[in-house]
């Protein structure tokens, strides 16, 4: 099964690198222009559950890596049983200087909160996303807090430690 998916992907798309990690996990490295077509291709082949969208900050290479984890429950007509269910990990790299990418909410609607989260914590702007409003954070941050160059200790010293004690403070 995983061999056939690998062959299908490599024969359909040109610059796609497919590695089979274990029996059930396949890593697909794609160029950022191809992501939407690859996801659409996979969705048509029963990988119809987007389990997670994640982001990795490669600060030395000045790149963000977006990770889409896909899985499916049906193998043709019958359901997968136990271990043989496949997980496809689609990875792509985008520039760190101007972090912009296209939204995949057109293909997988449940990507919406994941993309909002990545926008909030990494500052990646998703074009075409309808609701890129704050999700978790209450304060404004100059550098989005999950980037590697965000110094949490310095931030805490500058913000929370500056707030004085109301009582029993040693004046």
């Amino acid at each position: 099964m995983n061999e056939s998916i690998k062959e299908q992907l490599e024969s359909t798309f040109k610059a796609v690198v497919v590695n089979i990690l274990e029996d059930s996990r396949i890593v697909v490295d794609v160029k950022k222009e191809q992501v939407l077509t690859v996801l659409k291709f996979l969705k048509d082949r029963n990988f119809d559950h987007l389990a997670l969208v994640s982001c990795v900050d490669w600060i030395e290479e000045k790149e963000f890596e977006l990770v889409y984890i896909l899985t499916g429950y049906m193998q043709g007509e019958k359901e997968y049983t136990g271990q043989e269910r496949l997980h496809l990990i689609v990875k792509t790299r985008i520039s760190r200087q101007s972090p912009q990418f296209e939204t995949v909410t057109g293909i997988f609607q449940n990507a919406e909160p994941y993309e909002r989260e990545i926008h909030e914590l990494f500052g990646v702007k998703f074009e075409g996303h309808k609701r890129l409003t704050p999700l978790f954070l209450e304060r404004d941050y100059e550098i989005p807090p999950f980037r590697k160059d965000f110094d949490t200790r310095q931030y805490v010293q500058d913000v929370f430690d500056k707030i004085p004690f109301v009582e029993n403070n040693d004046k």
Partner: protein
Amino acid sequence: MDRNQITKWLKAPAKMANKYSLHAIYFCTGCGIIEVPPVITARWDAERFGIIPVATPRQANLFLITGYVSVKTLKAIIRTYEQMLEPKYTVGFGSCPINGGMYWDSYNTIKHLDKYIPIDGWIAGCMPRPEAIFIAVTHLWTLIEKGMANGYVRYKENYEFYRKNQEMALGKLDWPALYQINSDSKAVEYE
């Protein structure tokens, strides 16, 4: 109930009733809340001390903050605290509200809860055992009897500074002040 207690009841019924009828509202932040179900159910049975959980801050007079406080949670905590009716007591549970605990340098977690609302007592530990809640309650009884559990009085007196701290952490607050702040920095109650 011995004779000593009866004279206490006759002398200061309000104090005694406050002691033995602590209706608690548990603020379910973080991991501390998992210690509360054994406390209120059959294993440790807090009800024999008159402690029962209630659903709304209006009915409660004990506020138990169990676990780390993120900035967004702080907003809810302040609003809950201000809705409670006086006299009210607050207890911070676990090391996170005391000084940040393992969230000591987190970008979105406040470190010292007593900068924002007054705290009458702390239960240290990560996690404290359920018995620690009972130790805290007996300490709170002593404090109430001596009139030292006066967090709500201190909140009224220092409301200006508490409000300023809250605004420093949360930005502009979108609810009205609980007490009016006068020019001579003494809080006056709103009618």
